[in-house]
């Protein structure tokens, strides 16, 4: 019982010592500290900017995807009862298609009042003699299946015309797909560069202090006793290096959002809101910074421990 307590106390004391040492060491090696932090800062800034852009691009893409719907104009049938029957049948047929998520009916009167709302009262002249068609709005389960579904609907008897922005939609999807992939590759490339850069800087720091490591080992320090302060130092470098990127990215995105969000009101796509996005991006920056710092030190100090 007693001895357990003593051992625990010692460990806490030693951990406190390691933290103290790692902080002292940052100050003592100020030149290398600044070099490492600069490297971390630059790379994390790039990672942060790209992550923000990529996540927004993703949002825009899925907004647009979700907005792709098929407009089915229903053929006009003179007899009202017959027309009603045909419409119901069409709705059923579309519902029974695979990949259809939802079908919404909109009468030609509703269509006209939408137009009037969008383009002004001049159009109310047409209320007397409405030239529009009754419309079904169809959404595919997977936006990428839109073209397929549209083609099937076209073959039904009571359709007059099927519209879904043919061609344009496909081009948009292609573009978004490429943009996403390019962005992913860029982010991965950046991360890799950042890791390489940071672990290299830390390696230089540690190489400059290999004599210290040797001496520590010679007076009987265990590997972990030598290593932990270095690893903690790497962690500090990562944390300090992520301060500027986190601040800069957050401020920049806040301003961009304030500027653009009002203008995008009512558009098909929106930017991601500041709070949750910045929390994610900043978390990512901090995590990457700490991870590379810790990993870089760990790997670099290992080489010099074999004394």
């Amino acid at each position, binding site marked *: 019982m007693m001895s357990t307590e003593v051992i625990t106390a010692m460990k806490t*004391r*030693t951990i406190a010592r390691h933290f103290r040492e790692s902080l002292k060491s940052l100050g003592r090696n100020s030149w290398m500290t600044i070099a490492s932090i600069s490297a971390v800062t630059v790379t994390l800034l790039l990672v942060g900017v790209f992550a923000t852009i990529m996540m927004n691009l993703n949002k825009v893409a899925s907004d647009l995807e979700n907005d792709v719907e098929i407009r089915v104009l229903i053929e006009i049938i003179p007899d009202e009862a017959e027309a009603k029957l045909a419409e119901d049948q069409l709705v059923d047929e579309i519902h029974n298609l695979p990949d259809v998520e939802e079908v919404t009916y909109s009468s030609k009167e509703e269509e006209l009042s939408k137009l009037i709302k969008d383009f002004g009262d001049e159009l109310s002249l047409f209320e007397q003699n409405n030239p529009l068609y009754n419309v079904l709005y169809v959404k595919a389960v997977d936006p990428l299946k839109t073209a397929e579904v549209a083609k099937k609907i076209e073959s039904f008897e009571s359709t007059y015309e099927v519209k879904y922005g043919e061609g344009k939609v496909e081009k948009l999807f292609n573009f978004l797909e490429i943009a996403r992939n390019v962005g992913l590759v860029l982010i991965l490339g950046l991360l890799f560069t950042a890791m390489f850069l940071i672990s290299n800087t830390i390696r230089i720091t540690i190489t400059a202090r290999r004599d*210290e490591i040797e001496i520590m080992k010679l007076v009987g320090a*265990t590997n972990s006793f030598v290593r932990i302060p270095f690893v903690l130092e790497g962690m500090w470098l990562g944390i300090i290096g992520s301060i500027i990127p986190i601040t800069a990215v957050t401020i920049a995105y806040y301003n961009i959002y304030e500027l653009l969000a009002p203008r995008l009101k009512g558009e098909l796509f929106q930017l991601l809101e500041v709070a949750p996005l910045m929390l994610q991006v900043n978390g990512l920056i901090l995590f990457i910074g700490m991870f590379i710092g810790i990993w870089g030190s760990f790997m670099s100090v290992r080489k010099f421990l074999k004394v």
Partner: protein
Amino acid sequence: MIQMNNVVKKYPNGVVAANGITVQIKKGEFVYVVGPSGAGKSTFIKLMYREEKPTSGDVVINGINLRTLKNNRVPHLRRQLGVVFQDFKLLPRLTVYENVAFAMEVIEEQPKVIRKRVMEVLELVGLKHKVRMLPNELSGGEQQRVAIARSIVNRPKVMIADEPTGNLDPETSWEIMNIFEEINRQGTTIVMATHNREIVNTVRRRVIAIEGGMIVRDEYGGDYGYEN
């Protein structure tokens, strides 16, 4: 205390620095290790604190066999030894006090105990008034005294010194030698590799001469035996 049985050390580049060394050093002895440069003195010393592993044969210190000692137990061996080098090997960014205290922090000693003991050994080597200085603010002799303080702070049973006076002028060398004698008087075994003819011939102790990786002479109260 220290025992070597037919120890051979062959380096990867083909140099045979120890070629069948058998020796026994008893508790409390003071042993000089002499011999020309490149004869294997340093290897003999390094084998004792496991900087080098023997290629064959056994090195046993305090009952620990260094040939079979696992890497992760090496720190515990070194805590039982005090090691002093020609180039002092002080941590340049730490003060005199911190350098000595470091050896005690490594063994997770209590802060109170550390402060008391560090001041005690610094007083023994006569540097109590320079505890806040950095190594580069001290003379060579003072730096070596700090290194000695560090090596004895954990009360090792064995002290190993590799040319501790090699970088010092004669007068300072004698000061250092006096400290070693004092430590030895307190019962610590000392093994000292040296080129210092004057010291060996004046303070007569056991002399082990090494040439070509072999012990060519082992004599109590012997002389240095080489022309400088």
